């Protein structure tokens, strides 16, 4: 066991924590959906990447692919995905169960759906520890208490015995973070965890996540539609559109010098410093349906600077600097 662990550790050292290459996700059925269309992503331990995009762009599907919680029967995953040196697409049975919640953990937008309404917060967190680490229930409860204290829930002893509905929105979100992190995962996936919260509570949760991530040294992939949130939480940003990363780069570069017209449109729509009364540079139209693979740039129909060549083939990822890639012929 320990030798296996140490070999795993040493492999993990030499390669990034997350390594996705040309990953595609397609949902079968009467109307097939090409949700993710060839994304490449590398994330190191201790690093935070935001995936920025609108509804239907494939952000959440990307996270669920990493956690392997998409329905097996109807999902076809292509490409390679390695997390901490392990081929995630090949996992099954016990190894898959250990992967979920042990190596990779996820927090969601609605904690009311993620938490079980008929168990107390303490029972739910303890169950996770008992399952993954084989400790006693009492030990699990002790760990749950420690974790609730860690995420700064007021009077944690009392809250161990609370049911989810007895807590406020911000507190439930903290409880879900405690549940996700109690087994010290290497990778935390966050699917819009602050979207439903008031701005005053959102900033508290973002600061908490930043602090826990630093302390535990875990990697984090944070999905959001809000550029401001991405700036607060992440080192790098990947802008997603129609199942592709149209632009990736350090958050600083993306904010100051967006190269893809879609990124520019998103930044304008954020209204940060927008002039009152001035007309907004709104992106016209709506994102494409994903029932067929795009054969040209998927953004071309809405793009203000598109030319004929844009619809002729998929724009390749062009490299601008060490971490900067843009899928646009005109960038």
């Amino acid at each position, binding site marked *: 066991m320990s030798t296996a662990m140490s070999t795993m550790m040493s492999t993990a050292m030499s390669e990034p924590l997350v390594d996705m290459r040309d990953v595609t996700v397609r949902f079968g059925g009467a109307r097939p959906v090409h949700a993710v269309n060839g994304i490449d992503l590398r994330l190191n331990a201790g690093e935070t990447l935001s995936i920025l995009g*609108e*509804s239907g762009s494939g952000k959440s599907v990307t996270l669920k692919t990493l956690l392997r919680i998409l329905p097996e029967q109807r999902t076809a995953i292509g490409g390679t995905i390695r997390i901490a040196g392990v081929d995630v697409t090949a996992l099954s049975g016990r190894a898959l169960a250990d992967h979920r919640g042990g190596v990779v953990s996820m927090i969601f937008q609605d904690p009311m759906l993620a938490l079980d309404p008929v168990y107390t917060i303490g029972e739910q967190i303890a169950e996770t520890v008992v399952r993954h680490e084989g400790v006693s229930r009492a030990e699990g409860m002790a760990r749950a208490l420690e974790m609730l204290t860690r995420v700064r829930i*007021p009077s944690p002893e009392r809250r161990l015995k609370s049911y989810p509905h007895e807590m*406020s*929105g*911000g*507190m439930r979100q903290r409880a879900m973070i405690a549940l996700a992190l109690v087994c010290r995962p290497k990778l935390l996936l966050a699917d819009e965890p602050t979207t439903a919260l*008031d*701005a*005053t*509570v*959102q*900033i*508290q949760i*973002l*600061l908490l996540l930043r602090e826990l991530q630093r302390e535990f040294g875990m990697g984090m992939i944070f999905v959001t*539609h*809000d*550029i*401001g*949130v991405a*700036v*607060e939480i992440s080192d790098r940003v990947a802008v997603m559109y129609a199942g592709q990363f149209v632009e990736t780069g350090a*958050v*600083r570069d993306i*904010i100051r010098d967006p190269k893809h017209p879609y990124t520019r*449109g*998103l930044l*304008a*729509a*954020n*209204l*940060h410093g*927008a002039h*009152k*009364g*001035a*007309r*907004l*540079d*709104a*992106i*016209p139209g*709506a*994102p494409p349906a994903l029932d067929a693979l795009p054969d040209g740039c998927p953004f071309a129909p809405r793009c203000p600077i598109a030319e004929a060549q844009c619809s002729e083939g998929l724009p390749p990822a062009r490299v601008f600097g060490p971490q900067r890639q843009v899928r646009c012929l005109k960038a």
Partner: protein
Amino acid sequence: MSAAQGMSAAPGGSLAAGPLLSVHGLTKHFPIRSGLLGRGSVVVRAVDGISFDVTEGETLGIVGESGCGKSTTARLLVDLITPDSGEIRLANRRLGADMTVRDLRRDVQMVFQDSYASLNPRLTMEDAIAFGPMINGMAERQATNLAHDLLSRVGLEPRRFAGRYPHELSGGQRQRVNIARALAFSPKVVILDEAVSALDKSVEAQVLNLLSDLKSELGLTYIFISHDLNVVRYMSDRVMVMYLGEVAEIGPVDSLYSNPAHPYTRALLAAMPSMDPDRRTEEAPLSGDPPNPINPPSGCRFHTRCAHAAPVCSSAIPNLSRLRAERHLAGCHMLVPGSGHPEAAAEARP
């Protein structure tokens, strides 16, 4: 055209004398059953004695955390909820005296956040828009023509969209239909209660442009409720900040955003993401969730979360006091000389 719109505060016509919409002492408490036999006397103080005016042609933004009473205020204004007390006046007519609820609702229309829940799933778009006018006596033919006009006005081609059902439209398209339906009575005031909050950012920008166009073309007055302070700043002429059922601060948008007077307004603005990777927020301006409106704190309701709280804050209720900028008011003891707050000026000026 729309660039000058923010400046055009001078209302034309006969109403120039007073505000178009005027609210005084509006209050709504919701009783909750508690205790044995449900005879407890617990009340949620959703809206607690708020007063404000809206001038013709302006946009009043309303902001605040969840549970502060923004949406209850909106519903009270169109009598979807009947107020416990208080007065609503529209163009100098008082609701309940010389104006009926029916009159009020013709002139004050509302658009809600959930575009799908706001539409009858069994009505086509033209029927949904024509329904109200027909109930009010318009002939079917005429109402359908009106519906088609309104659809094209909100950017939906009638030939393609008139016969569709709500589930056949995207969220942005449905919200356009809801806006068209609100316009069917040629209202004076349109209340937009988080009307763009559920939309994707790129679609939101399109709908905001549409709202600005409609406002200048039709001379509308908006009450714009949102939790997004960037959007409120962009849309509003004046902004009202609510906290636990009360008005904390109200004032012209530039004055309020650049010189927020109430500590709560300052905290709300500080809680916005910084948009600068080199100057990230390092400390949350407020801790914890907003308190429960069932038992709001005594005195100033914000004192339990306020960094400047002093003994006077828990004992005395602050009144809205005038600030230097015109029409800018805030309810905080620190702004009142002689209030007893250590950070206020010592003596009231003679």
